[in-house]
């Protein structure tokens, strides 16, 4: 009886799944066009799934093994079941294989259930609590179903009761696994995820590559709305990406704003986009909400503004402005969803279309327009800190080996100490360098993260125009934000440069024996990875090697390297200043204190400012340039 029912069950399930898939695809295709190489993507998809995605999942060994067993078992079991029961192939081998596949899946399902017994806070509950049961039902049903075919049980074993139970189990299993996959159940992640990997907006990220620069807005059409106002303003593959979310909450666990009690949770943000995509309210969301924002109050639809002009929409603007763009969520996401791109897209709308950059944001942007720096300082005073250093300017020397990019830290008294230290190092190594001096402008980093793409492009084009006039081999900067923008975001606007962060550059000088260093004395040191150097650009080793070269007793914080916690200074977060329960730099300072270090080495003016803003007593904050400058062996002959 069951064997005659099976082809029908399978056919109905597959048919419903296809209908669901088409419906879902229609929702995605409401989004804007995107330049995607469809066939190359589909070809590359299995590798992206098996290699790149698995690399991320593997950071949690338990779940990685579980996932291999469950997903592998499920895919294999489904295919085999289709052949065995759909096309009614009679094969003992296939039956044995189905037995093995569903067995593997069962093991996986049990492990999922075990994880779900007391699930960590970051995991969503609700429908996701049902999933291990559904998985087990599916696995057990097919396991039992395969037993007679494999000859382990006699045909007709168990009689009608078992057959009825089995039918029920298979219906449940198919409904969850096949129909649920395309109609919005927890299994949606498998279907949307696979396509998302195929049509990812940053294909460079696969195969060990890195793509972190924001994508430029096109201003040619003055009537086209700028940024993302409603869900359909996202590109279709972004919408698809949101649907791929498995709600594992790894992003939530690493988000500094969430930990600080600011109203942001990357997982909820992505889920809200899914709600907006299909229309509805967030009442059925079953994970941690945005801190301080109860569920059920926000709703939206594909053609409704995400941030309502009046009343409540899908999101409150504070949620978007709380992000520090530290990319920790993106780095952790096993589905490789691009949270930061989405947030900046929505910020672009708020700033460019509505003029609603909160708190000091408007003032900072006005300053950038009027004075080329966020502080509103006289652009003619950019070099005041170096009045006694006689730094050669490119306007005078025209060509040089190394262009030292100062960044806006040149106006900040604290950062001027770092700059002086680095100049000392460069001079001691005999590097031929020059600065742009007063011709330099803000790189545009803050403007871009605050959503003011127009000001960013204006500044960038002016900087590129200035740089065109001169000849130099490479740019070195002490500011990871300038570093990132110059290296990764200027090329799209026509400025291609060789850019180094000062730690990389000093490390090279040291390797080339151009720096003679003595051991640095003074306590234990830990290193704080700046987001824009580490996660954005993958520079983790050079600063550490430099510290080791100084003979420093280096300790690592629990969260370091690609898992480093943000200082709270990125993405204009100190400017938009969204209140939370505690401050992000205070949390980072607690990390530093917990490592037992008495000095924290940094490589970013933002990090320095944020960490030094923590009330004393606290470990001392020193830039690596300062540590190196303190350890230079001054050679009499060179002077």
């Amino acid at each position, binding site marked *: 009886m069951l064997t005659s029912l099976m082809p029908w069950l399978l056919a109905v399930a597959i048919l419903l799944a296809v209908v669901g898939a088409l419906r879902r695809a229609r929702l995605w295709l409401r989004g804007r066009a995107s330049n995607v190489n469809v066939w190359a993507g589909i070809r590359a998809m299995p590798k992206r799934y098996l290699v790149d995605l698995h690399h991320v999942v593997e950071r949690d060994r338990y779940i990685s093994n579980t996932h291999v067993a469950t997903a592998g078992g499920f895919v294999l079991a489904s295919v085999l079941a289709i052949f065995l029961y759909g096309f009614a192939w009679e094969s003992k081998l296939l039956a044995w294989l189905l037995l093995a596949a569903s067995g593997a899946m069962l093991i996986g399902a049990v492990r999922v259930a075990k994880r779900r017994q007391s699930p960590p806070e970051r995991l969503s509950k609700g429908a996701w609590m049902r999933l291990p049961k559904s998985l087990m039902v599916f696995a057990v049903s097919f396991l039992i179903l395969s037993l007679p075919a494999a000859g382990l049980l006699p045909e007709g074993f168990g009689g009608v009761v078992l057959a009825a139970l089995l039918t029920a189990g298979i219906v449940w299993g198919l409904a969850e696994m096949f129909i649920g996959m395309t109609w919005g159940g927890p299994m949606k992640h498998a279907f949307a995820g696979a396509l998302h990997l195929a049509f990812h907006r940053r294909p460079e990220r696969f195969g060990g590559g890195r793509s972190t620069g924001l994508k430029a807005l096109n201003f040619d059409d*003055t*009537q086209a*709305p*700028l940024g993302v106002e409603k869900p359909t303003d996202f590109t279709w593959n972004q919408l698809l990406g949101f649907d791929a979310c498995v709600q594992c909450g790894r992003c939530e666990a690493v988000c500094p704003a969430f930990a600080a009690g600011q109203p942001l949770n990357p997982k909820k943000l992505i889920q809200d986009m899914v709600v907006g995509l299909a229309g509805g309210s967030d009442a059925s969301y079953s994970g941690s909400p945005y801190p301080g924002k109860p569920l059920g109050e926000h709703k939206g639809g594909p053609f409704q503004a995400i941030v309502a002009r009046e009343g409540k929409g899908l999101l409150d603007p504070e949620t978007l402005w709380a992000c520090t763009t530290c990319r920790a969520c993106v780095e952790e996401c096993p589905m490789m969803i691009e949270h930061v791109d989405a947030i900046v897209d929505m910020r672009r709308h708020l*700033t*460019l*279309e*509505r*003029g*609603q*950059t909160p708190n000091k*944001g*408007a003032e900072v*942007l*006005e300053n950038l*327009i*009027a*004075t080329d720096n966020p502080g*509103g*300082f*006289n*652009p003619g005073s950019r070099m005041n800190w170096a009045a006694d250093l006689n730094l050669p300017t490119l306007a005078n020397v025209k060509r040089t080996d190394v262009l030292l990019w100062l960044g806006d830290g040149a106006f900040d008294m604290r950062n001027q100490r770092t700059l002086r230290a680095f100049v000392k190092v460069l001079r001691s190594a005999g590097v031929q360098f020059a600065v742009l001096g007063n011709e330099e402008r803000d790189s545009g980093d803050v403007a871009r993260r605050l959503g*003011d793409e*127009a*000001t960013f492009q204006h500044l960038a084009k002016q900087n590129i125009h200035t740089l065109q006039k001169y000849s130099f081999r490479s740019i070195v900067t002490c500011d990871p934000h300038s570093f990132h923008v110059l290296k990764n975001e200027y090329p799209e606007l026509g400025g291609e440069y060789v850019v180094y962060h000062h730690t990389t550059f000093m490390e090279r000088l040291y390797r080339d024996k151009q720096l003679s260093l003595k051991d640095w004395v003074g306590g234990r040191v830990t290193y704080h990875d700046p987001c824009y150097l580490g996660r954005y650009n993958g520079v983790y080793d050079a600063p550490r090697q430099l510290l080791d070269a100084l003979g420093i007793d280096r300790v690592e914080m629990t969260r370091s390297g690609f898992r480093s916690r943000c200082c709270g200074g990125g993405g204009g977060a100190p400017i938009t200043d969204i209140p939370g329960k505690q401050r992000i730099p205070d949390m980072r300072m607690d990390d530093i204190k917990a490592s037992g270090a008495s000095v924290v080495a940094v490589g970013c003016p933002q990090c320095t400012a944020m960490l030094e803003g923590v009330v004393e007593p606290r470990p001392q904050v020193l830039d690596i340039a300062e540590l190196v400058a303190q350890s230079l062996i001054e050679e009499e002959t060179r002077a």
Partner: protein
Amino acid sequence: MSRNLAKLPSNDEVSVTVLVSVGQHPVTGRLRRADQDARALEMAMGLSDAEPRVIYAGPLNDSIEPALRGYLGMGVSELKVLRQSEQNDIVPALSAFLNATPSSVILCGSRAELGESSGLVPYQLADALGYTLVANVAVIEKVAASQAVVLQALPRGQRRRIEVALPAILAVDSASPVARQSAYAKATRGFINCVVSDTEEKDATNEWHYAPARKRPKRLKIIKATSARDRFKAAAAKAEGAGGQVLTSVTAEEGAAAILKVLKEEGVLKT
């Protein structure tokens, strides 16, 4: 201070006009929307849901246009331009235009940021149009058909309430609420509408010339000594600015007295 709370009743025939000019950044001198004029527009936009009429009189060229677009970025769709050449007095053109198309409330900044910036234009205009004028307006509290109640800004954050008969020109003070951010997209999409060109009226200011502001010398303390002792004290007094005075190991009473003495000397303590 609170935001503008007054809302115009929609059936009233109170129309609002804002006069704007081109401003410059105090540090770099780059042209942009003028701060007080933008505040005036902010005030006008708070008055009614209908869009206020925005008028600019003066020269118009490629460097000035982006500055004017700053006002459009605040959310008005059109800016009317009475185009004048550089050396022209703008008052005749403005008064002729406003006479033809009157408005019951005209808002403008108190002082321009370019040129003479004497702050006389609102007065000349009020005189030419026969409007009432109130200067240094910080908040508009109420607008009715025939009169308005405004708060005038006084030094040190103080306010004075004034009732003024309409039609009136209200010159807005820097103490009024900050203007909203100018949004790039609205600024580029807004419409700059040239309604009038030059009315031949030359200014008699050829004897005038401008130079970058000189730093004003600090006034020297002239000591009028009436006795030898006073003269000696003045001559022997420690030069100022050579680091501050630090009072250590004093009692709280002495410390408090020393601080209060300085506050009195500086004139910030009124008792």
